[in-house]
């Protein structure tokens, strides 16, 4: 076959990568898998295991998944909630059983999941991809009711719409406070992308306004790149205040939009409080959460260190060095699916290598990345020190625009692989 013919064939077939060439599965190797959570991790894992030939049930409480990646663009006024919303079409394409319900109990001995509606699902292996829950027991004054006045918007959906409405209603000259938590939390660069894209909106519509980041951390993800972008794009509009400069929020009063710090009170026109987080509730019910609030797992199989037979992927898991990102959840889902398939065939799962890439936008045409490559060391993921890292500083605007375009391309590819649309 000539090179040209091979290229043409490949083009004509419109090949996708992980979707291809599944080996026929022997009947005795077919396993029953329940996947809880239809986000970037769960949807990807469920589809891949179904394509391998296993008997897969995907449990997701909502009819559609609302993507956190992209939600800061909604706050910035240049994207819509509709573009973040993905019905579980891919699961339908791959013939898995989808149950729209909440998982409320797990029995690891019997190997069952119980749903709110009463159905009991048996499994040989369970995959939990429950994402994060906000912790309302850490910051005095910040509970679920307070989140309706000072939205976290750290799960995309009504909270995103609420924060956007508050920004639209705000008068020019107001202070927008963003209060990010300590590490680890979902999407480490997210609060700073959010500050950037809110600044993009305010600089066009309410240019006398300011953004104050009251942070629980001294430093943050991609800090040199964000700082450079803020100086270039929004001079004087965004202030980062770490704990050493009185930035740590120690309490809030939601009714008056007051944030209390060790150095005095700040009254915000709009307050976005991002509280500390932990693994989604079903993980604790299943017994796979440790004292950190997260789920320690193998970096090879993503099987829980605490309960055999239960695998945890995505933001809820602690496999070693990977950050909590949609990219990581999708990459972990594919590795876990491959490992689970091997375990059903009584084969040894191979030591994987994983990649994470996080795109951030500082403006619609200004993007940059942090990347990492991970390998297993003593069963946990460790970052390879001479790979990965940040986009370069001092890059020309054209390079930032190129990365912003690649960010959109990444989003199209990952949402297609996870959700099939």
């Amino acid at each position, binding site marked *: *076959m000539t*090179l040209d013919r*091979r*290229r043409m*064939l*490949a*083009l004509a*077939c*419109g*090949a*996708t*990568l*992980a*979707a*291809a*060439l*599944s*080996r026929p599965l022997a009947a005795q190797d077919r396993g029953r898998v329940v996947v809880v959570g239809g986000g970037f991790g769960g949807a990807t894992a469920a589809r*891949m295991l179904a*394509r*391998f030939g296993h008997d897969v049930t995907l449990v997701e409480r909502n009819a559609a998944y609302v993507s956190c990646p992209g939600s800061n663009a909604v706050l910035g006024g240049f994207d819509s909630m509709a573009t973040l919303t993905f019905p579980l079409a891919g699961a339908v394409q791959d013939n898995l059983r989808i149950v729209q319900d909440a998982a409320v109990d797990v029995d690891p001995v019997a190997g069952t999941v119980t749903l709110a509606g009463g159905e009991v699902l048996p499994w040989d292996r369970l995959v939990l991809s429950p994402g994060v829950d906000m912790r309302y027991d850490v910051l005095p004054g910040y509970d679920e009711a307070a989140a309706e006045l000072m939205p976290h918007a750290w799960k995309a959906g009504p909270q995103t719409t609420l924060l956007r409405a508050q920004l639209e209603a705000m008068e020019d000259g107001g202070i927008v406070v963003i209060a990010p938590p300590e590490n680890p939390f979902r999407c480490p660069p997210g609060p700073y992308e959010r500050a950037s894209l809110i600044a993009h909106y305010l600089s066009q519509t309410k240019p006398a306004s300011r953004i104050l980041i009251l942070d629980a951390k001294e430093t943050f993800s991609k800090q040199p790149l964000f700082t450079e972008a803020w100086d270039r794009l929004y001079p004087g509009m965004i202030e980062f205040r770490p704990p050493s400069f009185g930035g740590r929020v120690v309490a809030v009063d939601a009714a008056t939009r007051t944030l209390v710090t060790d150095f005095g009170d700040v009254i915000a026109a709009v307050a976005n409080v991002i509280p500390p987080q932990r693994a989604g509730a079903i993980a604790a019910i299943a017994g796979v959460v440790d004292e950190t609030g997260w789920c320690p797992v193998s970096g090879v199989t993503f099987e829980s260190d605490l309960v055999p037979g239960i695998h945890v992927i995505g933001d809820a898991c602690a496999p070693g060095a990977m950050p909590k990102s949609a*990219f990581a959840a*999708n*990459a972990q889902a*594919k*590795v876990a699916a*491959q490992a689970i*398939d*091997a375990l059903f065939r009584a084969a040894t799962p*191979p*030591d*994987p*290598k*994983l*990649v994470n*890439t996080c795109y951030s936008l500082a403006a619609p045409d200004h993007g940059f*990345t942090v*990347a990492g*490559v991970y*390998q297993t060391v003593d069963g946990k993921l460790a970052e*390879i020190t*001479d*790979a*990965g*890292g940040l*986009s370069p500083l001092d890059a020309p605007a054209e*390079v930032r625009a*190129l*990365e912003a*375009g*690649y960010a*959109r*391309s*990444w989003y*199209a*590819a*990952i*949402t*297609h*692989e996870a959700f099939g649309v």
Partner: protein
Amino acid sequence: MRQVLLIVLGLSASGSAAQDAPPGATTCSGCHGAGSSLPLDALTAEDIVTAMAAFRDGTRAATLMPRLAAGFSDAEIAAIAAWIAAQEDGQ
């Protein structure tokens, strides 16, 4: 041509199934899968090996790939490239 076909069939039998992806290979589709503006569909294994080597030694500039290529050995890249190319041919 028969030789190439035999090699492709041999790969299919011995390690090109999706279940047998070599370390790192399934991560690529997160950016380069269907819907991407940078698909790998038209690339041969040799194309992928050449590109990754050039990213790694700095002779080909790119926004991101040099930072990722630095984390993979020649043998790992060869295995990933062969697997990706085999997936495409099998569709």
